[in-house]
């Protein structure tokens, strides 16, 4: 049985504390929403396999999502995970303007540590809150993204699930496009891309061992 993916890509979630980075990750990986999520300590991670297009034979990318803590005190730790990231979700909270202005600093830090070809997507989270609480207009965010060389911008709601899938799919597709256009040197690990070369399944031995372990 082949591994169910063709590529692994490393994606980091960054942004101020309380923007909903962990909620986005949980929404994507586990499909649920937890209204009372604790503050992230250091780093969490999860993964999700995403097909790059809708055809049944489409190639699949496994997104390895590193959900970093937004709090300043963890900055030293989280920074070491930026290295070798293929993609990044730069998250802000549309109801708090400060989180959007801080995005500039996050972007600087990310570009300083990560690969030059990293695919960054700007994500405005909590779009379910409605216009009366909104502090960052869509147009402004889009303009900022373009002005800073970020190719994609999307608004999401981890609570309702709106746009979440879209955000990660966008990210996966851009990475796939980059792979196809040969931006990454697949032998060089610094891009965080790995190709599935070992198309082997579990051997019989190991299966038995597993069963023995389970029962």
């Amino acid at each position, binding site marked *: 049985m082949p591994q169910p993916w063709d590529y692994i890509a490393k994606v980091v979630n960054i942004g101020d504390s309380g923007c909903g980075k962990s909620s986005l990750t949980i929404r994507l990986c586990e499909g649920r929403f937890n209204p009372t999520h604790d503050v992230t300590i250091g780093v969490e*991670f999860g993964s999700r396999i995403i097909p790059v297009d809708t055809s049944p034979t489409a190639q699949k990318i496994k997104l390895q999502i590193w959900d970093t803590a937004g709090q300043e005190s963890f900055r030293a730790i989280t920074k070491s995970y930026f290295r070798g990231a293929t993609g990044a979700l730069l998250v802000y909270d549309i109801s708090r303007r400060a989180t959007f202005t801080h995005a500039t600093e996050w972007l600087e830090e990310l570009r300083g540590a990560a690969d030059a070809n990293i695919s960054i997507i700007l994500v405005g989270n909590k779009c379910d809150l409605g216009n009366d609480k909104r502090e960052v207009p869509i147009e402004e965010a889009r303009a900022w993204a373009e002005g800073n060389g970020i190719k994609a911008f999307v608004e999401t709601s981890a609570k309702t699930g709106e746009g979440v899938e879209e955000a990660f799919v966008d990210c996966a597709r851009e990475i796939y496009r980059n792979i196809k256009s040969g931006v990454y040197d697949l032998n060089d690990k610094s891009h965080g891309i790995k190709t599935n070369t070992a198309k082997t399944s579990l051997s019989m031995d190991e299966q038995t061992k597993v069963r023995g372990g389970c029962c």
Partner: protein
Amino acid sequence: MSLLGILQAQAPPKQDATSTIQTLCLRLSTSTLLEDRRAAIMGLRSFAREYKETVASGGLRGLISTLSKDSEDVDTIKVVLETLLLLFVKDESNSESSEDIALWLTDEFTQKQENITVLIELVQDSDFYIRLYALQLLVAILNNRPSRTQECILTAPLGISRLVSALDDKRDAIRNEGILLIINLSNGHTDIQKLIAFENAFERMFSIIELEGGVDGGIIVQDCLQLLNNLLSFNVSNQSYFRETGCVPRLAKLFQFAQEPVPSYAKGQSDTNIEYAMRVCRLFVVPGGLGAAANQNAFFGAGILHLMLVIAFSGFSDFPVRAEALRTVADLIHENSLLQENFAQMKVQYLDPTILPEVQAQQNNPDDLCYVIEGLLDLALLNSSIHAFDARLAACRCLESYFAGNQPVRLHFLNHAINLHAQGDESANVLTCLINLDQDSRGDPYRVWLASVIFLHLIYSDEEAKNLATSFKEGDADAGEEVVTVIQSISANLVAALEHNYDPRIIIGYLMLLCTWLFEDSPAVDDFLNEASSVQSLVSTVKQSSNSNVLIQGLCAFFLGILYEFSHKDSPLPRATLHPILASRMGRDHYVNKVTKLRENPQVRDFEVFRETNRRKRKIGLPEVYFDHTFIDFLKDNYSRVLRAIDKDPGLETHNTINGIPHALNGISVELVDSLKAQLEDKDEELQKLQTTCLTLEQKITQEQHESQRTKEAAAAEVQKANAATEALRLQYDVELRATAQKARSEINGLEGQIQRTRWEASEAARKAKEYGDSEVAGLRRRVAESEAATEKEKAERAGEVQRAKAEGEKAIEEVTSRLHSAEKEALFAHESLRKSEEHARESDQRLKTSEEALKAANERIASLEEGSRRQKSEATILQEALTAAQSRLEECTKQQAASEAQIKDLETTLRALEASLIKEQSTHVRILHEAQESAAALEVRVKELDARLSDAEHARKEADEAAKQSAAELDDLFIVLGDLEEKREGDKVFFPFAVCEIYSG
């Protein structure tokens, strides 16, 4: 399609690994039974190698929490630790493995203090595997996040001491893992290093090393030495702890191994261990370090210096070991004059430098000794083996350390070298190597290079040594030989080397020496400039465009800059001639370009950074070592100055020293100096003239002085006379004053005597009067008491008689009833007379009371008298006060006299002032005299006053007498009263018998 494929197709749908792992993780976190959890963990362990990411993301938290939750269950813990270790292992072939997983694992542990604490507690477990795995996990964690983990371990209760205790484990695997852990733990954290040291780590390390067999002990010994290295590097506190706890001799013991062949299989590790141990030694004596001097002495005391030399000059030691030993020796004696002298006296085994090392080992002869300096020179200058280079460089460093900060040693060494060279001695000699550029030297370019470097250290920044070296000349002029100096020989060699393209190291060696030698030394520059062709040769080298060596061209240019900077107008090649050669023939821009290129060359620019590594990186052929560190410092310090030298006007000389004495002219035009000199001569002449006039003037002055002296003396005599007169006056006045004071004092004394006497008399009279009164009163009281007693007795008698009379009366009534009335009348009469006598008694009582009142009045009088005498006393004190006032006046007078003396002194300043003040003084004297007389008069008035007071006192005494008399009169009265009383009593007595008779008769 293989058979396997067919089988696979027929097999039931397989379990998906990911979902299985998820199930296992769920079971781990939710199961309540220990067995279930253990089964889940074992399942996870099987996946951990292949599916690191999935296992880590789902199961890590559960695994870690099991460590504390199921800590009693050894089997479970063991499996958990195994699984965690598997997750840490990086596996290149596995696409799911990434460094991030290990990093994430590390962060899971280090972000939560309790997780590290749990691991540290597991290190205490007695189970072999648990202990080992826990240590391995800690090592892995430390490698990933060193500083964070160090903090966690430091925070954990007893963290450090628990980990260090793993070193005592008897099981080698655990002990060795413990050493690795502590090496990682101690890296770069001073506080942890101290804590580890205080856990007796030095002792433990040496015990392990000794257990393992010293330097022959394999890689564990290397690890132990590495740990010592970590604990001691740049940690002065630990270094002194090491020194004070007697560890230096134990370190020395490591070097006490027999000098004999080591089997080749063990040689590599043994040499590494020796080098590590030597590196530990060197940590203590880093040149310029805080405790370096104390450590140098302690190490010398433990014999380490000697042991190092034995190793360095043993035929069995390989060159890397010899080099490290020599570097250690260099650090041990650096700038320590005591050890430098001791060092020179030491002897080492003589090794023939021309024989191959393998042969040396066979010919090892420990009894063939030579002085260490000779041994070092042999090694540095004569051993041409390419493998020996490190050792040669180290020998050169040894000599440098031997010279460092010790001028006598330098001069001695230089003198010795010159003498031996002059005698044509064949032993290794720096000077000979520099001067004789023969075939051998060309074959071994480092011979000249090392000789240059050693010589450079001999003369660097040492005027005296430079002068000594410059003054040495060779060649016998009488025998027709050309006399040449060392500089000339060297420059000739340099020119030859440049022309024939000898190895660049030879050229660079010479140039380094010349640059430092000629810097700030104009006589040496002159010496060099004697041969103008040398300059031409240098210039043409700098101008060469093809086949050029940047270092050589740059150094030549730099050297030309120094030549120009320190040349002067009287040089053999004057500045004015030299400047166009440089600025035009060579070209100013060309010069700047070459010097800048030199400075920018990595060999120069990054010298300090790559100093150690460069040597190790060399490939085939000669090492890429071109420069000495002192020269590089010199070049970098003076780079900009020499670079700008060419822009200086030839007329401006910079710095000119002759025999070490700065010869003025610092940046001043020479012409200006000449004109100044001429001016100076003119000034000298003028000065001469002025001096003669000055002399005549002085003579005049002395004459004048004589005259003035004479007048001064006359004036002084007058002053003396006046002084004598004043003195006489003063004496006279003193006598008068004293007489007056005496008189006043005697009068006062007389008065005081009178007062005393009067007072005494008065008090005596009062006392007598009082005594008399008292005795009288007492007598009176006694009499009163007697009379009272008598009265009482009479009363009692009378009562008895009355009763008797009554009884008789009653008898008479019984007998004579008819006479009853008359008898009753008589009884009544008797009663009446009784009452009368009682009235008499009462009267006498009243009299007594009045007499007592009179006595009280007398007492009051006495008290008033005493008060009077007290008043007299106070008056006497007032008088005494007046007396003291008079005395203070007297003192004031003497003070004024002192003031007058001061004025007398003032008088001496000028004669006129003297006379004026003399008169003033006299008048003052008169006034003072007058005042004194006045005060005497006042005293007399006082005396009169006192007389008056005395008469008052006498008057008071009279009054007291009168009072006494009065009291006596009153006493008389009392007596009279008493007499009356007695008379009355007598009367009563007379009357009573009469009454009794009447009763009887009645």
